[in-house]
């Protein structure tokens, strides 16, 4: 069963079976990490363009490696935020990339729905690498993969997402994926950073971190954009850290075996202490590795690949 759509715009648009197919496909992809020669011929002759309107190191590098290990030709275009405001036309850019032969366009953009506009404009497969506060599907896929790898399942787990839910595409994609796979999701953060009516997405909401951590199997800590403080959404970094920072003391009160995730890059000492981020409970570095495997799986499936067993050895 391949994916139904030519694009990966969000987990919102995937069926549970499709998400599981991607996760299953990522397992043999990860195995490539153990090889001396990290190369699959799958995408030979295909061109992948990373079109990034926001600065990104790990997501862009992760996509780049995923493409290269599958033998695609990979090009990066870093476009500054200001050029969008100056009126650079996204549709025009998308058509240009298609004329240059792009088979995959991986787009990171500060505005929700930008990948949808590109997907409507071109025949190439469009992969959303983060659109505003909307979705970041491959981040959620790697989070799901990491949870499954560490804890063996997702169904029935209690997952708490902590931080700036309002502005977080990671939170939204995680919610879609986790709820579809049967987890119980709680979001936690200051009231000013919880978007309205988010409970309708199938999650519990609390502003009390202690309550949110009490019976969690997984805690996903979001990066705090420090500039939000200047917009009056919380009074100070100090108070945020005091109320919502994940510290050793707080982790000690969690269930034994709790899994801690962070999409990175972390503000160490703000939303999570270095001690926690580097502890055995945390999977911060595995997440990065798993990210490449999940993105390889997405590229493989979007290029028409079928069952995981068919992946060439």
């Amino acid at each position: 069963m391949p994916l139904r759509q030519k694009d990966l715009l969000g987990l919102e648009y995937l069926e549970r079976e499709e998400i599981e197919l991607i996760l299953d496909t990522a397992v043999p992809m990860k195995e490539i990490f153990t090889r001396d020669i990290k190369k699959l011929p799958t995408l030979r002759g295909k061109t992948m363009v990373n079109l990034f309107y926001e600065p990104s190191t790990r997501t862009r590098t992760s996509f780049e490696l995923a493409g290269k290990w599958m033998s695609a030709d990979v090009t990066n275009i870093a476009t500054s935020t200001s050029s969008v405001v100056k009126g650079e036309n996204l549709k025009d850019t998308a058509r240009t990339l298609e004329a240059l032969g792009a088979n995959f366009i991986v787009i990171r953009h500060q505005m929700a729905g930008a990948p949808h506009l590109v997907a409507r404009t071109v025949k190439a497969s469009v992969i959303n690498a983060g659109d505003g506060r909307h979705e970041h599907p491959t981040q959620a896929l790697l989070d799901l993969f990491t949870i499954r790898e560490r804890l063996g399942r997702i169904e029935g787990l209690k997952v708490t997402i902590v931080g700036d839910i309002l502005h977080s595409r990671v939170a939204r994609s995680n919610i879609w994926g986790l709820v579809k796979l049967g987890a119980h999701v709680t979001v936690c953060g200051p009231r000013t950073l919880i978007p309205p009516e988010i409970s309708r997405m199938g999650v519990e909401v609390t502003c009390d971190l202690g309550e949110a951590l009490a019976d969690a199997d997984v805690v996903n800590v979001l990066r705090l954009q420090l500039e939000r403080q200047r917009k009056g959404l919380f009074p100070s970094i100090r108070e945020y850290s005091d109320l919502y920072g994940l510290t050793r003391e707080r982790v000690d009160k969690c269930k034994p075996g709790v899994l801690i995730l962070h999409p990175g890059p972390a503000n160490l000492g703000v939303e999570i202490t270095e001690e926690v981020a580097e502890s055995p409970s945390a999977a911060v570095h595995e997440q990065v590795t798993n990210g490449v495997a999940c993105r390889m799986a997405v590229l493989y499936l979007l290029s028409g690949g079928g069952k995981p067993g068919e992946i060439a050895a």
Partner: protein
Amino acid sequence: MKLLLKGGRVVDPRNGLNETMDVLIEEGKVLAVDIAIDAEDARVLDVSGKAVLPGLIDMHVHLREPGREDEETIETGTLAAARGGFVAVACMPNTDPPLDTGAAVRFVLSRARETGHVRVLPVGAITKGLGGAELAEIGELRRAGAVAISDDGRAVPNSRVMRHAMEYASMFGMPVISHAEDVELSAGGAVNEGYWSTRLGLPGIPSAAEETMVARDIFLAELAGARLHIAHVSTAGSVELIRRAKEKGILVTCEATPHHFTLTDEAVAGYDTNTKVNPPLRTARDVEALRQGLADGTIDVIASDHAPHTAEEKEVEYELAAFGMIGLETSLALAVTELVRPGILTLGQLVERMSYGPARILGLDWPGIVPGAEANITVLDPDASFVVDPAGFASLSRNTPFGGRRLFGKAVATVVAGRLAYVAGAS
């Protein structure tokens, strides 16, 4: 030449008419309204099975001339109006330059005389340059022909300026039309704040951004003892505030747009920028409140807020896209389909909301379909069904979220001061 509208049902509640009658028109005026008029020398329009209504007025339209003739002109906008069944449109002053001087108002009226298909009623600016700081020369605007004042597209953030505008405009009998928006609360927003803004990751505009300003302006109207008209009411809370203000005798009126009483914010789901409008599409509860307000008369007027934009301004990222949608050529059909056919409004009430209501607010002499009156008449086929095809619009712009939608109710003739500005089937 005489014009005879033959066999239609005249629906004119102010003149107690709701029956099949012929209407004879000569030299711009209604000559006779009677059963079976014979006039051998008249051009006869067979309108049997159709409704003959006092001419409809759209009191909230952006004609974009001067300044943005690539979006719309007075010629194309008024042709769209004629085809949509409107005999008159009030045009908003946020042109370039804005209608904040007598000269600018006279320019619009002069262009309307040269190129217009229907009557054009300019709305002057409240403040110079729509800047929200200093009052425009409102007396001069009135002398030039402005029917109301508004800084539409923007609120007047300063309460003192708004108070003085109301007091000053009342000297000339002009209403102040308020675009009610607290720009601090709405800043950066693109869609209604609620479940869909959360789900789509788009910055939201809360209902309170509108309601706080509706409440403020109601208090200011009470203080000034002056007439206030609230444009494009979109929330249940605003309807309730206006209902209570009217009960207290405050001189407030308001309008609702067809898109706000038809669509909810769920329409934004595919990031179609044609759904981006200010105020934003709200929730099902708000739609219900608008329909109730239209039914009980809290909402006086249906107006389109026709806001033309080019494809280039719309085929961009949702947050970058211009606010606004066109409505002149779908407004009447949406009112018929969404309000009249489900029984929310009678045809007579529709005439109140789309003809007498706006005429009263704008201070027009509007006697309806009676002998001696200027002949401003809309002939509606309430049962005609069609699929909205933006490519066929007279408007220069195509930014509507209703393309492909099946609607009922089509204007088949529009008579402006005795002249057939539009008749279906004619080229």
